[in-house]
């Protein structure tokens, strides 16, 4: 079966994913551990400083403070590394997911064809199939909403915008294949309680979302409706908070 072929390939490719995930997580954990160690050092230094603030000469103070500062900068480095690792991991998983999505779409198309071919195909089974496709739709809907939140992070912001632009088209096609996705379908989905929330409304991602062009934005992604958008704005876009901050500056 042709479907089997590409799916087999996919299996091969995904085989390493758990190990890579584990490796990255281990790395992160390692970094975390080192950060914690540094924090401990900092704490002890700070204690020392406060205890001997009066007796220490300014040079000694300076050296302690410098040490603390260095530790902190190291911590920050580690933090950056961790974030980087997390992004990398995310992208890795995301890549796999996207590949699987395309493969799945292909597979489903194949399946559909086959079903049309097979002559006796009574109502019950078609009903079952319908349920299946419905699930599928949901899934694609989910993916669609998800991917939006997915492809930022690693990629530079400028590219991001483009990606975002592409997304609707990219995802409309599968959606058309499975019929229009009802919004209720999306809502029906079992919501993972841990699903990260975005936007000012602190909801999970859905529909079209826009990313703040401020790289340090704490929220990153916003629903179009929540920020009063209907179409993608031209040029850079900053979320209400970031634009406020920028104005203040």
């Amino acid at each position, binding site marked *: 079966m042709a479907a089997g072929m590409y799916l087999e390939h996919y299996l091969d490719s995904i085989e390493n994913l758990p190990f890579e995930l584990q490796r990255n997580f281990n790395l992160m954990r390692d970094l975390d551990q080192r950060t914690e160690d540094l924090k401990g050092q900092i704490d002890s230094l700070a204690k020392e400083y406060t205890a001997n603030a009066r007796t220490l000469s300014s040079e000694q103070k300076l050296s302690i403070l410098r040490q603390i500062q260095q530790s902190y900068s190291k911590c920050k480095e580690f933090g950056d590394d961790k974030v980087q690792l997390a992004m990398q991991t995310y992208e890795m998983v995301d890549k796999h997911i996207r590949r699987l999505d395309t493969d799945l779409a292909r597979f489903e198309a194949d399946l559909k064809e086959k079903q049309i071919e097979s002559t006796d195909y009574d109502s019950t089974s078609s009903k079952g199939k319908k349920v299946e496709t419905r699930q599928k739709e949901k899934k694609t809907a989910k993916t669609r909403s998800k991917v939006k939140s997915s492809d930022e992070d690693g990629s530079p912001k400028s590219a991001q915008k483009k990606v975002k632009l592409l997304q609707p088209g990219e995802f409309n096609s599968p959606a058309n294949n499975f019929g229009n996705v009802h919004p209720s379908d999306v809502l029906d989905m079992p919501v993972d309680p*841990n699903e990260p929330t975005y936007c000012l409304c602190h909801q999970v991602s859905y529909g079209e979302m826009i990313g703040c062009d401020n790289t340090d934005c704490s929220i990153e992604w916003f629903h179009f409706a929540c920020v009063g958008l209907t179409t993608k704005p031209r040029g850079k876009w900053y979320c209400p908070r970031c634009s406020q901050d920028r104005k203040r500056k």
Partner: protein
Amino acid sequence: MRKVRSWECETVASGLKMGRGRGRGRGRGRGSSGQLRPPSPYRLQLSPSRETLTYAQAQKIVEVDLEGRLHRINITDALPVITEDEMMAQDIAECNSNKENSEQTQTKTRSWRKPPNSKSRKSVKNMSHQNQRSGSQQHTGPTNSLQQPAHHIPLPEPVFRVLSSVCPSEAPPLPTAYYRFIEKSMEEQDSVAEYDMDEEDLAWLEMVNQKRVCDGHASVSADAFELLIDRLERESILESRSQALSQSAVDEDAFCCVCLDDECLNSNVILFCDICNLAVHQECYGVPYVPEGQWLCRCCLQSPSRPVDCVLCPNQGGAFKQTSDGRWAHVVCAIWIPEVCFSNTVFLEPVEGVKNIPPARWKLTCYLCKQKGRGASIQCHKANCYRAFHVTCAQKAGLFMKIDPVRETGVNGTTFSVKKTAFCEHHSPVGSRRDGSGDESVEGRLVGGRGNRGQRSYTQSPPPPPPPNKKAAKGQKKKNAKGSGRSTRRSAVPVLLVPQIPSHRLNKICTGVEVQRKNQFMQRLHNYWLLKRQSRNGMPLIRRLHSHLQAQKTAEQREPDEKLCAAREELRYWQKLRQDLERARLLVELIRKRERLKREQMKIQQAALELQLTPALVLLRSTLEQLQEKDTAKIFSQPVNLSEVPDYLEFISQPMDFSTMCTKLEGHAYCSIADIEKDFNLMISNCLKYNSKDTMFHKTALQLREVGGAVLRHAHRQSQSIGLDPSTGMHLPESPNRHGFYNCTWDDVDSLLDPENRLHLTTDEQLKALLDKLDMVASMRTSGGRTKRIRLLRREINSLRQKRNQQQQQNSHSVNEEDDEGEEEELDEEEEEKGVKEKKKKKRGPLRAMSKSGTDDSPPVLELTCPVSSPLPGDAPLEPPVLGLVPGGRRSPGRSYKRQRSSRGGGKSQAEDEAEVGETPSSQQEAVHEVTPLGTPPTLPLVGVGRRTSVLFKKAKNGARLAKNKSPPEQNGKESEGKSNGLDSTLASSSPPSVTNIMTLPPTPSASPAPPSPSSHHLRSRGPSSESEADKLPPPPREEGLTNGKHTSADHDDDDKQLTCSPSPPKRSRGKPALAKVPNSEHGDICGSGQSTLLSLDRESELGPLDLVWAKCRGYPSYPAMIVDPDMPQEGLLHNGIPIPVPPVEVLKLGDFRETEEGEKLFLVLFFDTKRTWQWLPRNKLLPMGMDNTADKLRLMEGKKPSVRKSVHTAYDRAMVHLNHVRGNLNFTPSNFI
């Protein structure tokens, strides 16, 4: 079924038992010893029905434990009410009667038990058994009760009756909602034996058991039998399923083999025999109601194993019915042969009248099968045709046979009959023509279809029918005619009906059953089962399994494509994988967010720790940042570049700048705000010291001192409120009491505003207090009172500062006096200042720059000091600096003339310079001194001499500034030089009028309010002095012009110099009292060099760049504008520290064009409108502004519309602001002008 039923009975029984048990457990405490304890009367009463006591009944019983005895009272029974008196009596009676009572009951129950009803006996046994059990359970109960004789409790007299018949009351029906049907799962059903024995089985089992008993074996229970049969059935089903061919689905082109019609109506459907797959119409076969489940044709039903032959025809197959004499006949035959009929016309059976068939009919020879003497034939209905044929043969051949239902009075009178017409081949009618004479070809075709059908339905049995052969033949033929499936089915009927079960399976089946001599029994049972199946035509004995089998078959059909199924499975798998991945992604996303947050947290932590460890540092840092922000021009951000100002260190011993402060701060060199303030002040004072008064740097420094002071004061307060420990730079253990700095009221402010209230304070203290209040008020919410008080405070502060400055001046003056007497230190100081001055000079032009470079390595030397000075008594105080100025003979040539000049300029120029430097009090003091005797208030602006104005930047404090400013001064210098040559003479002539002008208008300037800032005051104060000088000594115009312009003439003597200097200042006068002032002087200010005087003298003469003019455009009233030099440097220009806009390239281009067009010189003017428009205008369109007050006013009124006038007014204001800025009059307010 029976099994199930019995099971149900069991549950019911157990339920009953439970109910009873409950009742017993609760109530019946019976002696375990077996003695029946005397029951309470009510119990006795109930005892007969105890066995059948239902749950509901138990519920209705109340148990009372009296004196260890249990009494059960039915709630429906009426209890007699007993008084206390009665009670005693009854109690005794009860006690007595107790024994009797018990006996009585015993007898009673016994007597009740007596009836020989087996059922009741059983139940009694049951009961006693139960009693025993319950007794054992409640072992202690009875003993206790026995120990306590109940004598004082009166019990009611037992009244009871024995019910003859038992009628257990029905439990009330439960609501339907309580019942729920749960279908048993396959496993459950499999575990239960579904087979129910019938009589046959019972009989067989009995027989077998008898035999077994005879042989000395244990009999086999019915349960075991049922179970085994059930297992056999299941096994057979499995077996058959494995070998079962997929039953073909409903045949679309099935036709009834009676009428050969495939028409299928709802009321008359085509039925298929479940075994032989015979297809018949309901009506054709006499099946009025379609049976549920299986339907078998008669043939299969009654003679499944033996194929039947029709008595009326030689053909086999088709729909048979039995004749009344037990033989078989085709339904069609029975229908068509006239003598034969059905006894029951609804069920179409049995076939009757075979005997009535006349022998002649039997003898007819079928022309189709040619067989003679076999079966009865019919003849063609055509009148003269005698052709005979068997009915089935005719059907096979497709002859025309038509049946019309007709009510016919047959032999039996009321028979419901049909009219049948059949024709031979030749006489088959066309279409519906009944007579038989018709178009043969058409008819043939028409019947052809049926013929085929008929062919298919029947097979001819060979004349001597040998059963095995027949079967085979039939099978083969069928194969040809019909589908193979059908024929094989037919042939396989016996096999299929009773699937053989392999012996190993049999063994497996019987493993679960405990039977003696198992194998033998199993063999017998198997045989029996086989027979039974056979007798039932192979029908499964368990119906459910059969239907289930069929259902499974259809289920299998539902998934015809295993591949598809597998694919779907696979899809599900992938989807699961997708979900897992999604979860992974979610997880990673969360991790990413977490890490980001952690990073943020780290930053915050760091900041927090920093605040904790070094709060002072943070405060200082923010203060320093604020200070730096105030320094918008970044003048103080970097250290002074010594390569650019090599002599800086000669004047400034301790350079200071923000970057140094930053490094010091980071190096923990500052402990408190005071430290920073010190450095800040040092920085400012350095700047003020090094830079002359009217430089941009000076002004910036002053401004910075103002705003920086506020910042520092604020920081001070903050540090106090925070409570910092100065030694550690950390928080104090406890925060100090916040003194309510921001809590003071207007009253405090007002009281402070009153000078009387702060007399006890020194000037500095007062100033400080006022500044504090100012800060405070400024931080308040905006209100009318606030702005007013701010203004008042400002004024107060300014006046205070002025006062202080005057004090200082006086102090320094006295010092200077001393200096005059020859104090070396002072001289040194003065020398420094002189150096400053020289530096300024150097910058004026290339020449100077040259000379400066010459002096670079040789800082001013102190050699020439005192001797040169003090040519005039008034100038005496200024002398020392002058002395300092003179560098001595070692200087370069460029320097020498300067030296001369300076010496010539004497005290005067020195004073000016000092005034510029601003910080040096000595010069000021001198000015004041001179002014006061003259009686003129120190308001007349004077200070800026031409030389100085032309040199916009004397000295740069730091490198950046220097670089930036280098070019403008040069240019300025150039301009002034270029013009001054020509103008010097005119300038000279102009000076007298100006002087006179000033003389005529002395009071006005003096009337202006006291200058708020010390610097401006200082500047102004300088004015009168020079003026006074001018007054005293009418200047020789020529020399003046020369000096003003260039200081090129080296031959002027000191006196000359002084004189020349003195007239020029008036022209330069700070334009503060513009209205009152002579236009002349203002112009002089603006145009930098002596040009202005030209203007004042001759209006038709040229206007110079930076002059303010009234420019008249066509269609517009005269509008204030400024003349701009089109050749000004592109990087911009500063006019006395005021930046002059650079004309855009387009404007310049346009100017060139216009100039060639007009053929005359055009001036580039910049209007003072909001947009700062540019325009090229000829000379005649320009009128100098600010020269004549009335002229200005006329221009202001020129506009016809009020809006235009207003705009002109604002522009005029703007122009005046500019003017005043240029003159350095900081306190100028445009409102003063209008």
